[in-house]
């Protein structure tokens, strides 16, 4: 895969799904989707697709949905998708429901809220009382991105050599996310519903923020107890390799 193809996968399958959490925790995003019973499909020509299903004030991101979407958007290429996500420099072509201006505008507003949680600096987030939520959303992007990178790598990102198991990644006091490794494939899950074989736990949101923002060193954080590893560490090896590669793309 080219860098653009990998990035397109990451934006659609690791970043966009975090709208689920944004809608759950953010009042402005909730106001946007209030009353919606709609689906928005986004597809990249020659690349990935993603569908956002919204109903009863909740948003769900799925790779495949049933039936025609309320709004269908097409990005001309992976490079165009990257331009759109990184600089708003490309506009998707509506192939379905382009007349539904409320959805088009709503999607734009949701994207802005997602950008806020992903990009706003710590001072602003703390002033807004959104620091913890932003850290958890950024952590979710990382966890999903690990799975996406494994999917985009010819060898599963080395995951096939580490064996099967469940890896839990989270911040103390908050629900962790999980990576399910089986048969050389890795899937990310927001529901920590399986017994983890290995856990990675940040001691607090500040510790996670330090690593996620690139200002802290993971290995130092492990040594100081800011990050706690438990369980079958061998399973973590390919995950940490993939984690270090995420920063090459996002």
């Amino acid at each position, binding site marked *: 895969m080219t860098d653009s193809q990998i990035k397109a996968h990451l934006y659609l399958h690791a970043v966009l799904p975090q709208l689920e959490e944004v809608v759950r925790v953010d009042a402005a995003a909730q106001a946007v989707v209030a009353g919606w019973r709609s689906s928005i499909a986004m597809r990249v020509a020659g690349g990935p697709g993603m569908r956002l299903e919204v109903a009863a004030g909740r948003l769900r991101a799925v790779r495949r949905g049933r039936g025609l979407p309320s709004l269908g958007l097409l990005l001309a290429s992976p490079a165009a998708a990257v331009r759109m996500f990184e600089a708003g420099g490309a506009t998707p072509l509506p192939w379905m429901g382009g007349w539904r201006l409320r959805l088009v505008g709503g999607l734009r507003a949701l994207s802005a809220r997602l950008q806020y949680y992903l990009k706003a600096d710590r001072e602003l987030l703390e002033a807004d009382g959104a620091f913890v939520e932003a850290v958890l959303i950024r952590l979710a992007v990382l966890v999903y991105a690990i799975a996406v990178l494994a999917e985009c790598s010819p060898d599963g990102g*080395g995951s096939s050599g580490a064996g099967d*198991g469940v890896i839990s990644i989270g911040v103390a006091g908050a629900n962790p996310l999980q990576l399910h490794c089986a048969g050389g494939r890795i899937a990310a899950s927001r529901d920590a519903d399986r017994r983890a*074989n*290995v856990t990675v736990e940040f001691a607090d949101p500040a510790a996670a923020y330090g690593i996620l923002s690139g200002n802290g*060193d993971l*290995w*130092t954080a*492990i*040594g*100081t*107890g800011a990050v*706690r*590893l*438990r*369980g*079958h*560490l*061998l399973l973590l*090896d390919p995950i940490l*390799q993939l984690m270090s590669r995420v920063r090459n793309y996002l």
Partner: protein
Amino acid sequence: MNEQFRVGDELFRRAARVIPRGIYGTRGPWLVVPGSYPLFAERGRGARYRDADGNEYIDYLCGYGASILGYADPGVDAAARAADQSGFGFNHPTAAMVELAEFLTARIAGMDWALFGKNGSDATSFALQAARAHTGRRTVLKAAGAYHGSHPWATPGTAGLTAEDSAHVYDFTWNDHADLEALVTEHRHDLAAVIVTPYHHPLFDDSEFSERRFLQRLCELAHRHGALVISDDVRVGFRACLDGSHQVFDFAPDLTCYSKAMANGYPIAACLGRKPLYQAAGAVFATGTFWMQQGPMAAAMACIRRLEETGGVALMRQRGTELIDGLRQVAVRHGEQLHVSGLPSMPKVRFATEDDFLRFQRFCAAATRRGAYFHPFHNWFLSTAHSDEDIARTIDIADAALSEVVAEGE
């Protein structure tokens, strides 16, 4: 911050500012449980050492196997000091190198020459080159999960490597006769060597002895196709017996590698080989500024002599057996079962009821906080310095540690 490790933690923070990862490699905190384990040592004697905070541990890692007589053994230290007193770092080797080569070739079964380095990786990499030089072939086979050092062809790491670094190195499954045979057959025209440990002792996984004459079959196959067998005796060496672990495990390597315990912690490694490989070994360019330092060579001779005089191998086996028996009883009292594999003097221990170490890690951490250093993933090591009193105290500590784990529940 755990007050028990306050000084060590502060050292680590300082280290992390100027040393990548603070502590790199296997001694880094990621392999243990930061907050329950010391990160810096200060001093040691016998089977015990103190960390930077002054906490004392009965040590069951023994410097990853190097401390076979216990820390600061007076005889070994005196030999090393005496040798180095006349200076070191000369333009030339000293007589100590010749004496050590004579000493080892007289003891290690089937080996006719010796060459020295500093770490196990020096020895295994040299052996590999010597095998390639002798056979004129490239391919090397090793058991999946086996550790043969940190050099690029063997390292379990991935960063900074290219695919070419481990080109011509292929893995077979330990004790899988069919897999080995298929791999040897596939590479028979280019097979330089098969490198094996005397028994399989991978990190994380259980140790496994050779089954159904696996090692003998391995030698037979390799030799039939003109390839050599390298015994990586770096970890097991001098713990199974003093004349080469291949004697105990009954196989016939062409090259053997030692380090770790051979000088009770002084930096030295050795590759020994059979006479027909003498020319090829000499043709390999092998050098290092510190490789011929006499102190560690004198220490090696003193260490092995001491093991001979004291019946060290049997003593470590006995102490290891006592430890494991005691731990098994403690485990049973708490409704737990231990799974133990490998030699009693370097047992690989885990709870039989789990394979992800989650509870075993807590147990090892609780024991270490109380003063018995148990590594959660690596095989443990006994030394000849472990006394009955040390073992008894360790079992008491294990009892308390397991009580804590049981009380905490899942």
